[in-house]
């Protein structure tokens, strides 16, 4: 009697397992069809997300970053254009939740500029990073690069390279060059003079002095060109016209061995040496 009872239990169990297997298959199919439809990457409003993340803001920030990474990777593999706006929002949310998360800043810089061309948005996110990660020169460096390369804004580029150089002094050369490019030669000279005062090594000091001289000469020419422009309403071409008109008594020498000239396109004094030591054959 009891064996009959246990048999019936086993029968019922087998039936249930069959039913389970069937329903499992159906659920699996339904989910796969659902997922294929795409565009279900919902992102809650950032204020709500911030409140609901409780004690786990850092964790949520990192998970959002991973999710974005996977989403981006999947689309790159299948060569479908990802939803850039969503990526921007996810990375923005990720950096609000954990404003120190370098992964998200790094990824923003890598993807939103080159692929999505969302330069202004990228810089908005990076600005947050600059505020929090005060010790990290990468973020102002990225911003300076974006201003220079994508937005063609040398003035802001110089400003950000300046900030990066304050954290990592090896970047000072970028800052100086961009100030020069942005027609802010006096700023470039003043940074160099400060460096000259700070540095003890004589070799480096003489190198800096050389650069100061080169920039100061360029600045003399720059001022002369502006004077000429005011007087004759045209640019002095060639630059020797400045001597003919008596504005300068002589064209200053480039200490790097190059020759100064006026670049009409960029509206700036340049030199053939590009402010670098010239090789022997270059100067001829």
């Amino acid at each position, binding site marked *: 009697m009891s064996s009959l009872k246990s048999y019936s239990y086993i029968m019922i169990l087998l039936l249930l397992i069959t039913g389970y297997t069937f329903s499992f298959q159906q659920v699996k199919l339904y989910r796969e069809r659902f997922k294929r439809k795409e565009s279900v990457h919902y992102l809650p409003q950032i204020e709500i997300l911030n409140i609901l993340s*409780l004690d786990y803001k*850092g964790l949520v920030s990192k998970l959002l970053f991973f999710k974005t*990474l996977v989403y981006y990777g999947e689309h790159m593999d299948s060569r479908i254009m990802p939803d850039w706006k969503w990526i921007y929002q996810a990375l923005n949310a990720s950096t609000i939740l954990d404003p120190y998360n370098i992964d998200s800043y*790094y990824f923003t810089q890598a993807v939103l500029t080159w692929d999505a061309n969302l330069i202004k948005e990228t810089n908005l996110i990076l600005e947050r990073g600059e505020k929090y990660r005060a010790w990290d020169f990468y973020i102002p460096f990225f911003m300076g690069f974006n201003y220079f390369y994508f937005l063609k804004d040398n003035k802001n580029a110089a400003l950000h390279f300046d900030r990066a150089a304050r954290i990592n002094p090896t970047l000072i050369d970028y800052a100086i060059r961009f100030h020069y490019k942005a027609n802010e030669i006096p700023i470039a000279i003043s940074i160099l003079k400060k460096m000259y005062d700070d540095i003890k090594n004589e070799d480096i000091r003489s190198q800096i002095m050389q650069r100061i001289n080169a920039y100061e000469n360029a600045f003399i020419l720059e001022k002369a060109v502006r004077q000429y422009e005011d007087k004759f309403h045209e640019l002095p071409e060639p630059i020797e016209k400045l001597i003919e008109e008596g504005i300068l008594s002589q064209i200053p020498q480039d200490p790097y061995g190059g020759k100064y000239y006026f670049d009409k396109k960029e509206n700036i004094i340049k030199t053939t040496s590009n402010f670098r030591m010239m090789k022997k054959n270059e100067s001829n």
Partner: protein
Amino acid sequence: MKNVLLLSYITLKGGIRDRTLFGIFILALALILSIPLLSSFSMRQVAVVACDFSLSIASFIGLLLTIFVGNNLIAKDIDRRSIYTIISLPIKRTEYLIGKFIGLILLLFISIIILSIFSFIAVYFTGILYPQEINFTISWLNFIIANIFIFFKLVIIASVVFLFSTVATSSFLPLALTIIFYFVSESIEEVKAFIETTTGKERVSLPVIYVAKFVFYIFPNFEAFNFKQHTIYSLSVSPINLFYLASFSLFYTSIIIIIAILSFQKREFI
């Protein structure tokens, strides 16, 4: 006093006999195994992500432990009516409450120590596995501070579980109320910040704003107990603020426990 110590010892032993610590141990092992895998997704800060994971997990497991074990201690006694036997014993009600509370705190303390040792190992080895790490800036002193303040937070939650247990007639109510308490305390700082922004003022109705501001003064701000960012990015922590925070949690816990004792003494069984 002797009764208190005895009771807390029994409570701790009960916790160990419940295999609570064993469960924690298993979880800690899972932690060690999963952290290197999960954090390897990071591009530039593998060890940082590992540390964030492990501290979050410690705080979450601690929360579960506090709520469920704390709830078992008194609410279950009342639910199962074993409280009748206990109050007929020559122990004061205050001693019973404090004894159990200390027992729970000891249990929490041991669990946090186990978890932090294991997460230290996990984070340390993740750091070794990825030596190219450029942002390996974890401050181990802050790691200890973070764990201590996770513990302080859990002590506050434990006291709240006890308070709710003394007024509740079933073991479900303290559980639900404590979870609500945790959610409110953890998010109150963000909510307050939100309602003070212009969009918040536009979207949230005035009574809600007043309630939120009132709640801000009643519930502890658990966001202040969060030292994860300080640990993983080596931010500086001022000792005086730590002292204030520790004294804050001490005062808060004591107040809640005193209210719990008062309510427990007034309570009529039978």
